[in-house]
């Protein structure tokens, strides 16, 4: 009796049928008989602000180094468990407030001292596979020097209509606690010492196989946040005074998303289109559209160029700076609440070799009032341009038990069935 190792064909087959996180087909019906582990390094670097937009300083901005570790392991046929750890180091100067220049133009003032912070995020998920779907429970914790968040969620997917459709839904909750550095100190008496917020998220999505080469998905998500939603490190210039950044204590956010995947056989490539419309009760509305081209190449290479466009309108209480006080008392000059548009281009290359996959990617992001469809009159001087480079390595291995098989030469596939053997019907 020989017990052969899983053959190369089986491994090849595994690799081909694996990596189907989104497809609502039979390949997803039960837990995969394989595990995978991976690591990704990313470096995020913001471009310096032009001297004309700053208070004359160098305008050096943020940079972030991220290390991600991922592990997915099935347990039996019905369960799989995944764990994700992210370690980030952030450093650099951050936008502090915006003040009018001598000619009335908005000038971004950056925090003088370089910020140094570490961020650790640990997330775990247990997922159960069912006859017609999946359900999952996830828990996470995120920690920085001045910040702590606990989050949890439940998600479910249901395949129906001969698995042409998948309905997915999720509910999530997060409790975030802030303890700003130097909060309430003599140096920053206006900076809060401690604050927290609760966030609830719900989403639903419906996907549908439209043709043998096309699958589409529509999704709606809603998020409600309650608590301290301002930025404790930012100030607003209000009539020659510097007041703390102050935003409404609740926020309702809606997003409508559409995704499409289409395979072009003649080119061995897939077209990905992701669109989103977003609106919230702070008056921000945004659109985003991302188009990617996933090109399969010989020797298990894959090249993916993509282009993303984004635009948003400003929050109704946002101004680069304020010439008078507001009745509601809300002030923010955070560039994130400004009107602007952004374009980013990305290219990723991936190579698979046996159980290993390696990928490298670079993305350049540029934001500008001119990238928005509507003309932007009060653009923030602190808009970001950034570059991200990343590299990832992952390894996938089979957990299938070896198939016991008696020795002896393999019989060739019979061209025709052998004659019926006469065997007693009862033992």
């Amino acid at each position, binding site marked *: 009796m020989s017990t052969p190792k899983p053959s190369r064909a089986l491994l090849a087959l595994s690799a081909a049928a694996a990596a189907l*996180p989104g497809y609502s087909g039979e390949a997803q019906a039960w837990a995969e008989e394989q595990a995978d582990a*991976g690591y990704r390094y990313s470096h995020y670097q913001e471009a310096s602000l032009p001297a004309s937009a700053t208070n004359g300083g160098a305008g050096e901005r943020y940079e972030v180094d*991220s290390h991600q570790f991922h592990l997915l392991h099935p347990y039996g046929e019905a369960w799989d468990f995944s764990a994700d750890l992210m370690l980030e180091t952030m450093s650099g100067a951050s936008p502090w407030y915006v003040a009018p220049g001598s000619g009335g133009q908005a000038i971004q003032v950056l925090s003088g001292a370089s910020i140094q912070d570490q961020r650790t995020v640990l997330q775990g998920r247990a997922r159960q596979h069912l006859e017609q779907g999946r359900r999952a429970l996830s828990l996470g914790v995120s920690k920085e020097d001045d*910040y702590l968040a606990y989050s949890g969620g439940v998600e479910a997917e249901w395949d129906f209509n001969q698995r042409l459709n998948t309905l997915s839904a999720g509910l999530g909750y997060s409790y975030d606690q802030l303890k700003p550095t130097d909060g309430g100190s003599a140096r920053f008496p206006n900076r809060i010492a401690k604050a927290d917020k609760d966030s609830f998220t719900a*989403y639903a999505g419906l996907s549908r196989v439209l043709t043998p080469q096309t699958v589409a998905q529509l999704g709606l998500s809603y998020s409600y946040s309650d608590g301290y939603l301002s930025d404790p490190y930012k100030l607003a210039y209000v009539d020659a005074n510097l007041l703390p950044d102050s935003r409404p204590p609740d926020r309702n956010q809606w*997003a409508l998303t559409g995704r499409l995947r289409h*395979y072009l056989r003649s080119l061995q490539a897939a077209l990905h289109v992701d669109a989103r419309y977003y609106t919230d009760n702070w008056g921000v509305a945004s659109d985003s559209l991302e188009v990617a081209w*996933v090109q399969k190449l010989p020797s298990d290479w894959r090249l993916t160029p993509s282009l993303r466009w984004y635009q948003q309108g400003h929050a109704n209480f946002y101004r680069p700076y304020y010439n008078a006080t507001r009745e509601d008392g809300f002030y923010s000059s955070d560039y994130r609440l400004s009107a602007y548009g952004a374009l980013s281009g990305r290219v990723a290359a991936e190579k698979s070799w046996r159980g290993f996959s390696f990928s490298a990617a670079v993305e350049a992001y540029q934001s500008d009032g001119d990238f928005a469809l509507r003309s932007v009159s009060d653009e923030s001087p602190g808009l970001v341009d950034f570059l991200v480079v990343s590299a990832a390595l992952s390894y996938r291995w089979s957990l299938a038990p070896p198939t016991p098989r008696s020795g002896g030469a393999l019989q060739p596939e019979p061209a025709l069935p052998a004659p019926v053997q006469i065997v007693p019907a009862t033992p």
Partner: protein
Amino acid sequence: MKTKSLPLAGALLLAGCGLQPVQPWQREDLARPEMAWERGLVEEGAIRSHTYQSKEAAIGGPALGGGGCGCN
């Protein structure tokens, strides 16, 4: 606004194709790794959306994004 009519145009285009139900054995192309909703290795989608969310006002999509950040 141009962007608002995009989904409608897309739907009409697809409806015009005269859709036949896709049989279970016709899903080879749909099962290809190039067709996955999420691209890339090691939670690539997660860190990309984390990056955008920390720089833009908008959030949301058909997934739960756990663990926010006190980004500044």
